[in-house]
């Protein structure tokens, strides 16, 4: 019962908040006290993308016990897929005015578009790739890791290595993804200019919708029989084997779904921040994302969304006031949450609120009472 209510509240907050902000931006005069400035809109859009990433992490960490320290890789790959589309949209408006080749390729002396850039002039293709590429990578990674029963800290370390390796690869100019500068100077998405405020409001609203959809999807997954097997695997993996379950295939499915959700988050992130570069693969980003989930409350889904938004809000405020303090602050936050709030902010709610489900008494359940009297009649 409580989980259902929590879902409705979370969805309401995300969608209602996004619509309210959009209205405050579009329908009020810039001078008004109620006006939501454009930078707020794009900040919120960014937070919502992070919330999608946090949801993806909570799905594998909270429910399957896979502590991923490399989920930023899937997010960044989704971002690169969208970045490639946005680069192709620039066309002749680039510095070198080359209709097919992005500026950085002209700059390093390439005269032909590499095969893996084909198709990215289509929006649908880029969106498909934003899910497929992280999905394929996750499948390959998960197939080997889960089948060979790599788990715990060893798995965390190789996820970290995965994102680090990708970062090094994407730094190379000859990879054809813009090297350490990455991709930027985007002009438009589906014909809408990215520098127009209605476009950023639209992107923010779409992100809120996608986040809600991801929330409903992960909620349905974790509430199904599949989700219960995941929890069983998380806590007592060997026992599930003796019940006839293959934990590795359950982990693989959830890992794949999570990577694809993270990829979509990244694809929404890039048009809103206007740049994608290899630093998105930095291991620190992935670790920070895990902290969002820990702060919000692992294994609650709503907590992941809440944690991502709150921690990033704090980051925005703190880095503008005291930039050098942030790393210490988030480190301290992680330690404090681990020590004093092991169930995160959501844990505060559930321990302070009275239990919703009252203790069932036999009289309160007429079915059982009736069955009992029927049974005694038959016996008598």
């Amino acid at each position, binding site marked *: 019962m409580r989980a259902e209510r929590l879902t409705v509240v979370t969805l309401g907050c995300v969608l209602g908040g996004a619509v309210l902000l959009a209205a405050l931006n579009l329908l009020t005069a810039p001078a008004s006290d109620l006006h939501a400035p454009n930078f707020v809109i794009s900040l919120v859009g960014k937070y919502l993308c992070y919330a999608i990433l946090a949801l993806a992490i909570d799905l594998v960490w909270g429910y399957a016990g896979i502590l991923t320290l490399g989920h930023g890789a899937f997010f960044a790959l989704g971002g690169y897929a969208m970045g490639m589309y946005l680069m192709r949209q620039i066309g002749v408006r680039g510095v070198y005015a080359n209709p097919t080749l992005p500026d950085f390729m002209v700059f390093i002396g390439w005269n032909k578009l590499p095969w893996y850039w084909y198709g990215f002039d289509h929006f649908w293709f880029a969106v498909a790739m934003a899910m497929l590429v992280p999905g394929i990578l996750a499948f390959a990674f998960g197939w080997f890791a889960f089948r060979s029963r790599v788990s715990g800290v060893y798995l965390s370390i190789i996820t970290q290595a995965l994102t680090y390796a990708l970062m090094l690869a994407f730094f190379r100019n000859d990879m054809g993804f813009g090297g350490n500068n990455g991709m930027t100077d985007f002009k438009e998405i589906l014909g809408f200019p990215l520098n127009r405020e209605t476009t950023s409001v639209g992107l923010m609203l779409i992100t809120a919708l996608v986040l809600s959809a991801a929330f409903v999807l992960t909620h349905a997954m974790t509430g199904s029989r*599949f989700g*219960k097997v995941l929890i069983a695997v998380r806590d007592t993996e*060997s026992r599930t*084997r*003796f019940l006839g379950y293959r934990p590795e*295939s359950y982990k693989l499915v959830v890992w794949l779904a999570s990577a694809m959700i993270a990829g979509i988050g990244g694809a929404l992130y890039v048009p809103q921040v206007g740049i994608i570069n290899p630093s998105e693969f930095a291991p620190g980003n992935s670790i920070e994302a895990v902290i969002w989930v820990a702060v919000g409350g692992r294994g609650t889904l709503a907590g992941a969304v809440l944690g991502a938004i709150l921690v990033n809000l704090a980051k925005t405020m703190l880095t503008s006031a005291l930039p050098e303090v942030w790393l210490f602050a988030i480190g301290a936050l992680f330690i404090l949450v681990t020590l004093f709030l092991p169930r995160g902010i959501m844990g505060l709610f559930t321990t302070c609120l009275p239990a919703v489900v009252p203790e069932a008494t036999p009289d309160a359940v007429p079915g059982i009472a009736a069955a009992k009297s029927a049974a005694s009649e038959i016996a008598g």
Partner: protein
Amino acid sequence: MTGATLLYLDGVTVSFDGFKALNALSLVLEPGEMRAVIGPNGAGKTTMMDVITGRTKPDTGRVVYGENSDLTRLDEPAIARLGIGRKFQRPTVFEPLTVHDNLMLALAGDRNPWFALWARETPSERARLDELLTTIRLVDDRDRPAADLSHGQKQWLEIGMLLAQDPRLLLVDEPVAGMSDAETEETADLLREINRTRSVVVVEHDMAFVRALGVKVTVLHEGSVLAEGSIDRIQDDPRVIEVYLGR
């Protein structure tokens, strides 16, 4: 002989760093039989269970189950799906899940993740669950998390989960460790009840309990069978006395 036996361990040897936990162990179990396996610590009782359930692969030897399946080629889930259930010494239930969900996951059926994503409780499953909840006396606790149950209730829940699996063969590891005399007696009754429809292998230390079961006993020593027969014959066997009491 083949066809009539349910389980046949044929010259199974398992060694860990040169130490032979099982040494050419051979054992035959008839369908419907209940067998007690006893032996001093390190005799290989648990390793034998591990080999049957696929947790440990033997160096040599075969484990033939039913018609023609060689269990040494299969992994734990495949063996579980063939109808071999295992009860561990410590009750292992899924603590955050409700009593109902614990039984639900154990219930015989499709174990595929794709199936589990869409699965809905069918009326026949519901009826089976109600029946099981009554058997293990947890009807009123069906929606409580397993973590909230008492130690004894967890033992019952785990037995319920094993029954839900509907196994042909049940392996039970030291079921009465840490139990009072009354509970021990009750457990012996329960195992006899289960044995009416299924084959059972019980590993146990407690001689009084083995006597109460009143079934054929196999004594393991240093990884192979030392003696086999009724409890009275076993207790008079000089080699068994030597192993248990001598030196």
